């Protein structure tokens, strides 16, 4: 058994029991981050803060929301938006954060791809990150069902229909997921449970894994430089702060994070108060009506690219392409055969591949929302084929990359 002495201070008392000084060192002051990074490295902190905003606003909304098909719409649009003090604020924060979090996730993901931050020991960071993307997607979708508006209902109908797996006609699976033949009470209840319990738990667990995955390989830097963290940390602790290639997580890195967070929050709250329609779709302010299909059914903007990979093909091929799009990002560390962990700008063909992928996904996103007719349909098909082709050629173009 450990030896305890009479504590000299509260800190000492806690230290003997929880080793708080050691924890502080491990987690913050001697958690070493490369100095050679830019503001894109602050996206993790921004995501953590946005997740906190979602969690807090969600807790307040949960106090008044009623998961019942007869009262859900009313509890959101009347009770929360009109009756509860600042209920409108929590709803706007929740709705806008749910949309903006995906913008930041995409920036975070493309930063990782650009700087090769999924290679050489960082594979688990990438995989846990992609699992977070999947769980966030499920969280966003299940949350979208809850106001029980027209888009909730019809998006629920369309997306759960995907599980009939086209030509296989597994209609029983769709009914099992819905708990009914159409989205109804059982459907709303289970998506409510997923949204407020199971998926947030999974997300929090995965965030822990994502952070843990970062410990051993350390954070990448913007030149792909291999940093000897032990040597550089010693240099820092010996007083050569300017000469060392590493900085403390707190306060060094944290202060930069907070600066970026400050700018981000200005953008975020501008959207919350003055420009929220993109996140709170007007169509969803009509109550769900199973007898009235909206003229256009489209997912939120962050699902549009994968929706467009599903849409331009016949049912079965579309589903295969859609399945491909869902898993392919996960395999990136193995599809990129290059030995280099350096920014895309120094990787020749991969650089072209990166920008093409980014542009292709933006094109897919745009076509996913536009009506699938005429020229938009053709552009969507070409972009979907291009997406698949890009991933097929990736191993070949990276295999011949010269080691730098």
């Amino acid at each position, binding site marked *: 058994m450990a030896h305890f002495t009479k504590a000299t201070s509260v800190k000492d008392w806690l230290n003997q029991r929880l080793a708080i000084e050691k924890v502080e060192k491990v987690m913050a002051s001697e958690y070493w981050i490369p100095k050679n990074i830019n503001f894109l490295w602050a996206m993790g902190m921004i995501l953590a803060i946005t997740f906190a905003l979602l969690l807090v606003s969600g807790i307040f909304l949960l106090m008044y929301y009623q998961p019942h098909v007869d009262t859900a719409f009313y509890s959101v649009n009347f009770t929360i*938006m009109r009756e509860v003090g600042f209920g*409108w604020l929590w709803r706007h924060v929740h709705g806008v954060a749910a949309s903006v979090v995906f913008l930041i996730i995409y920036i975070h993901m493309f930063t990782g791809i650009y700087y090769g931050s999924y290679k050489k020991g960082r594979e688990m960071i990438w995989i846990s990150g992609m699992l977070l993307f999947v769980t966030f997607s499920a969280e966003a979708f299940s949350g979208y069902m809850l106001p029980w508006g027209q888009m909730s209902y019809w998006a629920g109908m369309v997306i759960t229909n995907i599980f009939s797996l086209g030509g296989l006609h597994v209609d029983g699976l769709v009914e099992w997921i819905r708990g009914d033949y159409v989205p109804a009470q059982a459907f709303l209840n289970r998506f409510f449970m997923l949204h407020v319990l199971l998926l947030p738990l999974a997300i929090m667990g995965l965030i822990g894994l994502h952070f843990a995955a970062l410990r051993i390989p350390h954070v990448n830097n913007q030149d792909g430089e291999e940093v000897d963290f032990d040597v550089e940390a010693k240099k820092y602790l010996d007083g050569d702060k300017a000469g060392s290639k590493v900085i403390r997580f707190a306060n060094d890195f944290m202060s930069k994070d907070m600066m970026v967070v400050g700018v981000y929050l200005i953008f975020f709250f501008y959207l919350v108060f003055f420009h929220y329609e993109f996140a709170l779709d007007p169509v969803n302010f009509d109550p769900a009506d199973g007898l009235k299909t909206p003229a256009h059914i489209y997912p939120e903007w962050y699902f549009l690219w994968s929706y467009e990979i599903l849409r331009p093909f016949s049912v079965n091929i579309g589903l295969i392409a859609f399945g491909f799009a869902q898993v392919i990002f996960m395999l990136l560390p193995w599809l990129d055969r290059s030995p280099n962990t350096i920014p895309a700008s120094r990787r020749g063909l991969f650089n072209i591949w990166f920008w093409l992928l980014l542009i292709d996904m933006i094109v897919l996103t745009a076509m996913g929302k536009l*009506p699938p007719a005429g020229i938009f349909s053709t552009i969507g098909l070409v972009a979907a084929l291009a997406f698949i082709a890009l991933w097929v050629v990736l191993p070949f173009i990276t295999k011949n990359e010269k080691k730098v």
Partner: protein
Amino acid sequence: MKNKEPLILVVVVAFTLLTYWLVEPFAHSQMHKHVESEHFEYKDLPAVTKTGNAANGKALVTGAAACTGCHSINKESMPAGMDAVMAAQSYGVNPPDLSNVGAIFDTRFLSDLIKNPAHALKVEHKFDAAKGKMHPMVAFYGAGGDIDQEVADMVAYLQSIAVKPENLTPKMAFENACGRCHAMSYENWTQIGEKPSFKHKKDSLAFDIKVLEYQDSLKAYMGKLPPDLSMYYRSRSTHFLETFIENPQSQLEGTAMPRVGVTAHAAEKVIEHMADSADTKRHEREEVGTNVMWYTLIFAIFAFLWKRSVWRDLH
């Protein structure tokens, strides 16, 4: 080493804005029919050339033209012949009270409505006299004199008894122009009026039954129950609401909803009432929003200063 951050920021912002523009303004411009506003001028209806005489108009409205046979004018102590439920059973919808119509509906529109209801209301696809489908409002065929003069007199009378436009409230405009077909439950409005608070459940249920009976007639008349407008200010754009109110056929061809013929001023009031229901907290939102923006700006400045002081030793 050169600082690449400004360039990175430009790239991130540019791609974000491009994506936003594609999925929001551009996509919506392609998805929805564009309808130009007609500014509530009702130019398709004949211009009014005669100057009306309110005294003659009163004699016509209450006498030869027989308006008060179906319409009440509560302001002038002329009550309706039957209650809303029974009126709807007879006509399909409860005929409006004429007390304030002069302030809400356009002069051209009222003049044409009196002579040819289905035409002014743009519901000739539903009501065609030649096919034996008469509009429930009987057209005025003249009282023996110059029909245009008589119509002008009646309109002048209705305008003389109506509230002054500046005293027209959003609620009044909505209830007169929309409220006999559309409920607005968040404002406690039913098609037969505001639901009072009853002491006994029995009385409350009796009122609900009346509403349901009224709605049955309305459904038969309109083809379906017109939607509750509680949240329409959030579910439709202001431009859509404006153009739809001034001419429902322009946005939704063949709809059973008649053109209601409100003036631009009354339309503004109607939309304000819809905002009062669907976006009750809009003024609070702007006020809180401005304060939060200032707070966040100050936070960002302090964060920047903190970063600068911490990083002074690191460079």
